[in-house]
């Protein structure tokens, strides 16, 4: 099976996932903005949680998929996993960037500052720039084999920051609150949180599938044998 075909087994699936993601996000955001009550202390500002927390979960999930893809590529040398790793890193970086911006917008009215070198914020920024660095590395290395191996190793190393981000609020004295989940928030806040979490999950999966197809098509082009002299002169 060719590299491109292997990441295009279900051509309609990413589009279905993108459609589902948009519907879930629209419903979740409507409930979060207009139906759910304001929180007792943070008031209206707490509504940012319905996009911020799902973005955080899915950013870490995308990076976990990049880590798994890097491992599978190193053990199998199957190029489709290189394309999947690249796709997951790119989507993870977009979500991590969004996460930092949303967090900053939430920090201003609640903490009084746009940014603080707090353990959670610092480790998240390190995560964003580490994975951004891997994308830059992939851009600058032309040889596909070297690029794939180096970026897979770098992804495995950078992934060490993911559990540190997750546990930073427990390990250190942090301004950031402890992790929010449906188990730690009031029942009235469940629905928008879950709807948006599924919405971003569907969008993220659809984006990764489409972006992996882009990567596979590029790889197919790069790995194709050079044309023979007779073909070039013809």
């Amino acid at each position: 099976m060719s590299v491109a075909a292997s990441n295009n087994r279900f051509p309609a699936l990413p589009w279905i996932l993108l459609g589902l993601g948009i519907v879930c996000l629209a419903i979740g955001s409507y409930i979060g903005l207009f139906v759910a009550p304001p929180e007792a202390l943070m008031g209206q500002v707490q509504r940012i949680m319905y996009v911020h927390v799902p973005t955080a979960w899915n950013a870490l999930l995308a990076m976990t998929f990049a880590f798994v893809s890097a491992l599978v590529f190193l053990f199998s040398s199957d190029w489709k996993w290189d394309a999947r790793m690249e796709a997951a890193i790119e989507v993870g970086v977009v979500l991590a960037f969004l996460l930092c911006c949303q967090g900053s917008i939430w920090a201003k009215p609640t903490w009084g500052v746009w940014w603080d070198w707090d353990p959670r914020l610092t480790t998240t920024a390190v995560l964003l720039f580490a994975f951004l660095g891997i994308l830059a590395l992939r851009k600058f290395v032309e040889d596909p084999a070297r690029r794939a191996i180096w970026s897979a190793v770098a992804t495995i190393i950078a992934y060490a920051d993911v559990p540190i981000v997750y546990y930073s609020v427990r390990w250190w004295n942090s301004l950031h609150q402890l992790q929010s989940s449906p188990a730690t928030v009031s029942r009235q806040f469940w629905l928008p949180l879950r709807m948006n979490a599924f919405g971003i999950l569907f969008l993220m999966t659809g984006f990764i599938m489409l972006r992996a197809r882009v990567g596979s098509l590029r790889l197919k082009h790069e790995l194709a044998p050079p044309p023979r002299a007779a073909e070039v002169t013809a």
Partner: protein
Amino acid sequence: MTGGMIPGGWNFVVAAYSLTAIVLAIYGVSVIVRLRAEIAKESEDR
């Protein structure tokens, strides 16, 4: 008195939701544009 609740804040909420929608939309369009370009390139090569 606000009873300890942060007053207002809708502008921050709107900013966070708008930014999320804009960034996801721009990224989605960029992926689709790149995919179409790669598919066109592939069909040219055939």
